[in-house]
């Protein structure tokens, strides 16, 4: 596949060199965090210690895949600013997440979605869900590697046979050793990189056009609008996007993407998780929509201006886009004056997008491999060192499988976008609905969960060969009736799964109430008590800053003592859960721990007493002050 630009050998060398240096730097940076993994919880969940902003910022890079720039720039060029729709329609499901799913998985100490299925239903449900979730995540890993392989081949002539395994090897290396902490910190770095590179591409395009007002005024009305036609375009229409993407797609990404779930589980408290979720939907997603799509909007405005003026813009070549899939590459290359160094930096951003999405998925697949397969089925009792080693091997296996899947993707026909949506909209409906019913309806039974996942998936797959089954539903919701049904398939799958689940539940036995405490929305308050080991204290206190650490070896691990004045600032009672962290906020909780606080009348107000073991568990350094905060 050609990319619509002609590179000299020297330019290709510079661009390839910049990208390679970037990949090596990220691998070394990620490898540094291997020292923060003492056990499995550290490796996969970073010990639930981070401040909200760190996982939230790292989600920027996770949410943008290597395909995003290419796909959304093309969409932006073809349909305009409505390319933002998929990024800006998530708010409707946020109440279900922040007050429902997030506290359920956090307080019940769920490590993986399949584990939730076992606790909520039974082990059969666990392994059915495992197959579907693994299919979803491996699909994304293979797809990301495939798209970057295609891009590398098109631009530089590197055969995928070499570029994909090489990239996968770098990625696998730092995820294997650094675990979730490496993923979060490298993704934070890569998120910044993505925004800078995207910003450069946008700035160059706007500059070429003569400013923001020029860009807007040369943009046709159809391309300014934030929504597309209600039904016209079978692959991109408002009705389909609402049902298939805003509901099904958003729930899938938020509720069942193990990578994102794990990110939330690294956060120090549910309240901080809510902050991360709000930030993600209010700030990160809209900004990302601009970063990945704007080059397409700029391209449209630029070509419109060129065509009306009848000549190239002053100082630039006449830009033509023969194949809209090349929009991002062509517009960037031309608007940065074909400078290989700047363009190399932008290509490195494509690498960043790839690496930051796949590292999360590799870590997530490895977590499922360990928590849902290796530990329960093969080795239930082993040391932390053993599981840590197994987790690293699982990361390597995941990387290899993802790489091998590229062979399968190469055999698929159709555009990158159609391959993507065809796959995802078939995989997600049944499991998304089952999670939803399981979390929000106590009477949903284990038999119903298993039946609805299997039958729901099968019937959804059948619609690929018999799309006319969806006709009635599309007509009912006034959606597009065109036989293509990319998004309507997801709505259909969700509807069928829900009906099967609800009907089956009426004829089968639900689990006893005491077996599902904390696993449904109406039992969250009970699970908070179990999580804390006592009655939660909801009084909102303040943080206690600049507290000195003093050692008392007589104290138990994860127990601290504070003066009455400090307890009063925190509004804490004896036995309350308190978060202890290095006072340097910018560490984001890298050196921190959850502890139980008790009053000690004999210590100073600016002092916290703990054992050496507690101090080590929190990774605190000698002489550094700490900040304290009551969790509940």
């Amino acid at each position: 596949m050609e990319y619509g630009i002609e590179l000299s050998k020297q330019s290709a060398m510079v661009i390839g060199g910049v990208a390679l240096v970037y990949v090596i730097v990220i691998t070394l940076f990620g490898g540094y965090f291997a020292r923060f993994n003492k056990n499995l919880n550290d490796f996969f969940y970073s010990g639930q210690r981070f401040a909200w902003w760190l996982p939230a910022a790292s989600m920027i890079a996770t949410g943008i895949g290597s395909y995003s720039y290419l796909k959304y720039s093309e969409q932006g060029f073809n349909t305009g600013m409505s390319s933002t729709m998929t990024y800006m329609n998530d708010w409707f499901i946020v109440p279900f997440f922040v007050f429902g799913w997030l506290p359920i998985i956090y307080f019940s100490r769920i490590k993986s979605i399949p584990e939730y299925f076992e606790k909520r239903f039974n082990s059969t449900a666990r392994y059915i869900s495992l197959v579907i979730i693994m299919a979803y995540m491996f699909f994304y890993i293979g797809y990301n590697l495939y798209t970057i392989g295609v891009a590398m081949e098109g631009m530089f002539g590197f055969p995928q046979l070499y570029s994909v395994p090489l990239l996968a090897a770098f990625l696998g290396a730092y995820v294997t050793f650094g675990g979730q902490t490496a993923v979060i910190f490298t993704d934070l770095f890569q998120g910044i990189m993505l925004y800078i590179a995207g910003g450069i591409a946008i700035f160059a395009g706007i500059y070429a056009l003569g400013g923001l007002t020029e860009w807007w005024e040369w943009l046709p009305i159809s391309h300014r609008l934030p929504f597309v036609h209600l039904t016209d375009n079978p692959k991109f229409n408002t009705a389909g996007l609402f049902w298939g993407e805003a509901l099904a797609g958003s729930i899938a990404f938020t509720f069942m993407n193990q990578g994102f779930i794990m990110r939330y589980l690294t956060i120090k408290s549910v309240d901080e998780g809510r902050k991360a979720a709000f930030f993600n939907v209010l700030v990160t997603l809209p900004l990302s929509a601009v970063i990945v799509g704007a080059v397409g909007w700029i391209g449209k405005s630029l070509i419109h201006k060129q065509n009306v003026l009848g000549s190239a813009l002053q100082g630039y070549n006449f830009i033509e886009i023969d194949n809209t899939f090349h929009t991002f590459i062509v517009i960037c290359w031309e608007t940065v004056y074909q400078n290989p160094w700047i363009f190399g930096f932008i290509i490195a951003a494509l690498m960043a997008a790839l690496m930051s999405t796949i590292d999360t998925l590799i870590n997530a697949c490895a977590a499922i491999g360990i928590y849902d397969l290796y530990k329960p089925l093969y080795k239930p009792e082993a040391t932390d060192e053993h599981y840590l080693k197994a987790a690293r091997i699982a990361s390597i296996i995941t990387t290899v499988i993802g790489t091998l899947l590229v062979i399968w993707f190469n055999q698929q026909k159709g555009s990158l976008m159609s391959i993507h949506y065809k796959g995802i909209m078939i995989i997600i409906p049944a499991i998304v609905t089952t999670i939803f019913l399981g979390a929000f309806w106590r009477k949903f039974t284990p038999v119903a969960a298993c039946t609805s996942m299997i039958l729901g998936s099968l019937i959804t797959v059948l619609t690929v060969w018999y799309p006319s089954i969806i006709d009635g539903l599309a007509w009912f919701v006034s959606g597009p009736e065109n036989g293509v049904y990319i998004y309507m398939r997801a709505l259909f799958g969700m509807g069928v799964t829900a009906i099967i689940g609800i009907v089956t539940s009426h004829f089968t036995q639900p689990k006893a109430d005491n077996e599902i405490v904390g696993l449904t929305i109406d039992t969250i308050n009970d699970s908070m008590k179990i999580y804390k080991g006592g009655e939660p204290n909801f009084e909102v206190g303040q943080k206690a800053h600049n507290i000195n650490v003093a050692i008392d070896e007589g104290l138990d691990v994860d127990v601290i003592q504070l003066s009455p004045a400090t307890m009063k600032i925190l509004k804490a009672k004896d036995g309350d859960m308190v978060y202890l962290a290095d006072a340097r906020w910018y560490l984001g909780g890298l050196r921190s721990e959850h502890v139980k606080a008790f009053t000690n009348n004999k210590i100073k107000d600016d002092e916290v007493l703990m054992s050496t073991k507690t101090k080590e568990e929190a990774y605190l350094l000698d002489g550094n002050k700490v900040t304290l905060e009551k969790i509940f």
Partner: protein
Amino acid sequence: MKKENKILIAILIPILAIFIFVYPRILIDWLGKANPWTSYLYQYTFGLVFFGIGILLVLRTKACIPGRGRDSLWLKILIAGFIFFASFHGLWVYMSLTWPVKG
């Protein structure tokens, strides 16, 4: 499930189904399929329905108790967020349609 909840759901589901069927048809008759305000109203009216169901659910199940901890704050942010997105998109459509186009 409490009896009052069962009655509520039994009433709500058919009303919701009728609304999903009728509302877009009214919109299309009134504005036409190609009008950007049709797309806007389709997304935000149905979005409001599902958002509202979510809020109702978390309040009725006591997953959110206004006045407890920071629950009131989160609830206000949720509602403000919806208003923000709806207003922002509304303004965006208005600006797109009214700002002159060159060429």
